[in-house]
């Protein structure tokens, strides 16, 4: 009775005899201003020592429920209990004190502080006034080793990749000795290797009798890691099932309420780089790209200036020759990167976060100087670090940091849309902006790119992530660029917006643009790309045909083992 022994799978969704659930919500309702009911009488409970997945589509109420469990929101109705005792959290801090910690999707770390400083922020193990970096760093290293969560405690957070930042947040939870950890879509920002590492940490945590609540909408990973699964749909808890007694198709049905339709965007061809020739809108010429014999890891016909002659392929639209660049600390992060992207081609850039992807994108967009080598668009070389030159040569940039680099959040949709067009666009007479014309242009772009906002004057920061990204795409792609650099373009977006963004990129490629797709989502890269280049420690570890490579092959290159 006192020990927690299960002799068989408990009936799904019912309370078990024995110890009370580690965390439970019953009848929880949360309404937001505007009448949205994010949680509608949700019931959820999780035992000690289990991985409990919260499965549901974007907007199903998973994150809201967990924000209630961790004191960020207060429920309008319903009760929360920890180990059988009712709790009323007024802030996340109360929740931390009760042993429950949530690792958010948008991590709340202080960029300018070190990892150690972030971990101890708001929490003291000893209660003392003094902050002793050495002691805290030692404590963190010890926890990090026990749970396989590797981060340098002395690094400053802004230097870290998103995967590493997530580990900092997990360390925060473990440092507070949280008994219940809630991970909100933790794999979104991780590479396959990092996901494996995370799962091994999670297994280590539940082995220590902690509870891990794992929010996800990805079936394979839920099936891999969870012991039980609670499904939410449209703000309601549908049911709870044992992992052992279910499969992907049942979960999918429960999640969407009907069978999943095959509705994903696919390239017209199976990723062999031979889609139908298309008319390039800028030049009016054909870009036949069929029958390109790119195979294995060669960069045939792209590596050297004369190579194009003996290849039947058209000259690459974007060509990088032995490009080197320094990172934010003046340390070299790109080493002799040589790549070419032909018109109409999507080149995926795969790699573990922090292997030079961001810097590569910035070099091409003219936001970071390259120290050696050359970047060419068509025949024109780009001046190092000349963003305006890059724009003028037809390079569009969809940055990773949407809100910071992609848009100006406190300007309106119209203003954001004309940010780049102000030099060439028709929306001005001399130095004077013709706002009515700009608004009209904005309205038509909003329609074309399906931007949902109250109007062209809505401030961009009021839009959802998907709509913000559409504003960026509308601005960048409406000028029919020759080259598109898209960095993690779908990260954090819901399914619908993700599909939309992908279709826009595919559409741009079909109109003849050369697309570089940088993503940490390997599925996305494999699905959309014609060829895939893997970056490892700032070098091109290999370039492969998307149609002919395997995940193992990519994984090995990403890990630097190929």
């Amino acid at each position, binding site marked *: 009775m006192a020990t927690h022994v299960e002799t068989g799978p408990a009936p799904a969704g019912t309370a078990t005899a024995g110890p009370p659930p580690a965390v439970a919500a019953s009848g929880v309702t949360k309404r937001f201003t505007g009448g949205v009911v*994010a949680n509608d009488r949700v019931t959820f409970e999780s035992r000690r020592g289990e991985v409990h997945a919260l499965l549901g589509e974007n907007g199903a109420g998973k994150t809201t429920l967990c924000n209630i469990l961790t004191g960020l929101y207060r429920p309008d109705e319903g009760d929360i209990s920890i180990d059988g005792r009712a709790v009323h959290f007024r*802030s996340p801090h109360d929740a931390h004190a009760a042993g429950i910690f949530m690792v958010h999707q948008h991590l*709340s770390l*202080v960029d*300018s*502080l070190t990892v150690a400083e972030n971990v101890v*922020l708001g929490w003291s193990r000893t209660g003392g006034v003094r902050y002793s970096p050495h002691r805290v760093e030692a404590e963190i290293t010890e926890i990090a080793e026990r749970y396989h969560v590797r981060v340098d405690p002395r690094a400053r957070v802004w230097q870290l990749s998103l995967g590493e930042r997530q580990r900092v947040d997990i360390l925060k939870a473990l440092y507070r000795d949280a008994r219940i950890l809630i991970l909100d879509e933790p794999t979104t920002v991780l590479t396959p290797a990092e996901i494996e590492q995370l799962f091994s940490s999670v297994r280590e945590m539940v082995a220590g009798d902690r509870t891990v609540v794992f929010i996800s909408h990805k079936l394979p990973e839920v099936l891999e890691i969870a012991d039980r699964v609670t499904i939410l749909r449209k703000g309601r808890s549908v049911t709870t099932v044992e992992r052992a007694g279910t499969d992907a198709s049942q979960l999918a049905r429960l999640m969407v309420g009907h069978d999943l339709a095959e509705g994903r965007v696919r390239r017209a061809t199976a990723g062999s780089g031979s889609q139908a020739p298309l008319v390039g809108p800028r030049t009016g010429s054909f870009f036949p790209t069929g029958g390109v014999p790119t195979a294995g890891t060669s960069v045939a016909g792209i590596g050297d200036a004369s190579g194009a002659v003996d290849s039947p392929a058209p000259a690459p639209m974007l060509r990088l020759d032995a490009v080197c660049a320094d990172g934010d600390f003046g340390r070299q992060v790109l080493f002799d990167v040589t790549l070419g992207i032909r018109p109409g081609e999507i080149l995926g850039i795969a790699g573990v976060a922090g292997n030079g992807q961001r810097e590569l994108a910035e070099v091409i967009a003219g936001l970071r100087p390259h120290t050696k080598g050359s970047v060419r668009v068509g025949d024109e070389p780009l001046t190092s670090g000349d963003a305006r030159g890059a724009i003028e040569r037809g390079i569009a940039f969809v940055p990773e940091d949407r809100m910071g680099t992609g848009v100006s959040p406190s300007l309106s949709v119209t203003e954001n849309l004309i940010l780049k067009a102000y030099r060439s666009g028709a929306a001005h007479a001399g130095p004077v902006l013709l706002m009515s014309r700009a608004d009209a242009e904005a309205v038509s772009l909003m329609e074309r790119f399906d931007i949902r906002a109250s109007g062209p004057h809505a401030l961009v920061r009021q839009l959802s992530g998907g709509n913000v990204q559409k504003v960026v795409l509308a601005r960048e792609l409406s000028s029919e660029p020759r080259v598109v650099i898209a960095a993690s373009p779908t990260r954090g977006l819901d399914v619908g917006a993700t599909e939309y963004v992908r279709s826009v990129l595919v559409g741009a490629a079909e109109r003849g643009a050369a697309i570089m797709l940088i993503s940490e989502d390997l599925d996305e890269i494999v699905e959309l790309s014609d060829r895939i280049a893997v970056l490892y420690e700032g070098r091109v570890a290999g370039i492969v045909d998307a149609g002919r490579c395997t995940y193992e092959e990519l994984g090995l290159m990403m890990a630097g083992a190929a």
Partner: protein
Amino acid sequence: MNTDLVVSLIVSAIVYGTPLVLAGLGELLAERSGVLNLGVEGMMLMGAVTGFYASQQLGGPGWIVLIVAMVVAALAGGSMALIHAFLSITVRVNQIVSGLALTIFAGVIGLSTYAGQVWNIGGQHGLHQLNRVDLLGLGEVPIIGPILFDQDPFVYLSWGLVILVTWYLYRTRTGLYLRAVGEAPRSADAMGVNVTKYRYVHTIVGGALAGLGGAYFTLAIAPIWTAGLTAGVGWIAIALVIFAFWRPDVLVLGAYLFGALSSLGFTLQAYGVQMPSEIFSSLPYLMTIVVLAGASTTMARRRIGTPAALGVPYVREEG
């Protein structure tokens, strides 16, 4: 140049730099919490006038009078800062507007001058002045004696504060939380740090230090009061915080550099060097411009700089 000249240059650099150290440390604390206080000049003027008035009115042993006068000056600066804190933290008025308004309100054509006239302290010669204290009897030691061991208590206090604030910022939990509040209030809030409390406390303490800095003029440099006697030192203190990259140790060096420039004219005159005084009087202000331009480029290059949430009111978000 002889040694005497150098020593006396350094000594007066310290004297004229001390109000900058005090007010600068105060501004540094407020800005580290994310509150930009442009009312420093006004707070210094209020400290100067109230401190002087208190020292003239009170009876009793000189050192007690002076301590009380310092406390009065700190309270005057602190209560002005409380107004700024309320306006910018609670009411979320634009911090630049609020700070400027306070400086104008308390400035040369405002409250501090009015108070001085009402109290009629304009022509008075001070009854008390903080004298130099020969610490440990080492004041006679050549060179370092006059610089390190023969200063007034305000100077020793400012040195103690520099060490204290440095330790506080980097080696205490509250200091760490303060830095987090200035950089990422939302994250700090989520970790249970009371953002509002931290901002109030550090803004008010900052104002109190500005008040003390102002009182240094009337209680230590010269025991007289004239309208607007700080002459822009409060503004230089704000610039100094930027120049110091929000670090107390750099701030103290910068303060003495400005102190040296401010006092260069008098010192050289005393040694018989003849130069138009306008040149010397304008030096600190010219230096402010040069230094700010230099500091900004360094900050841009080395990615160090302004607390990220400086000047931004914090609103907790509940969906």
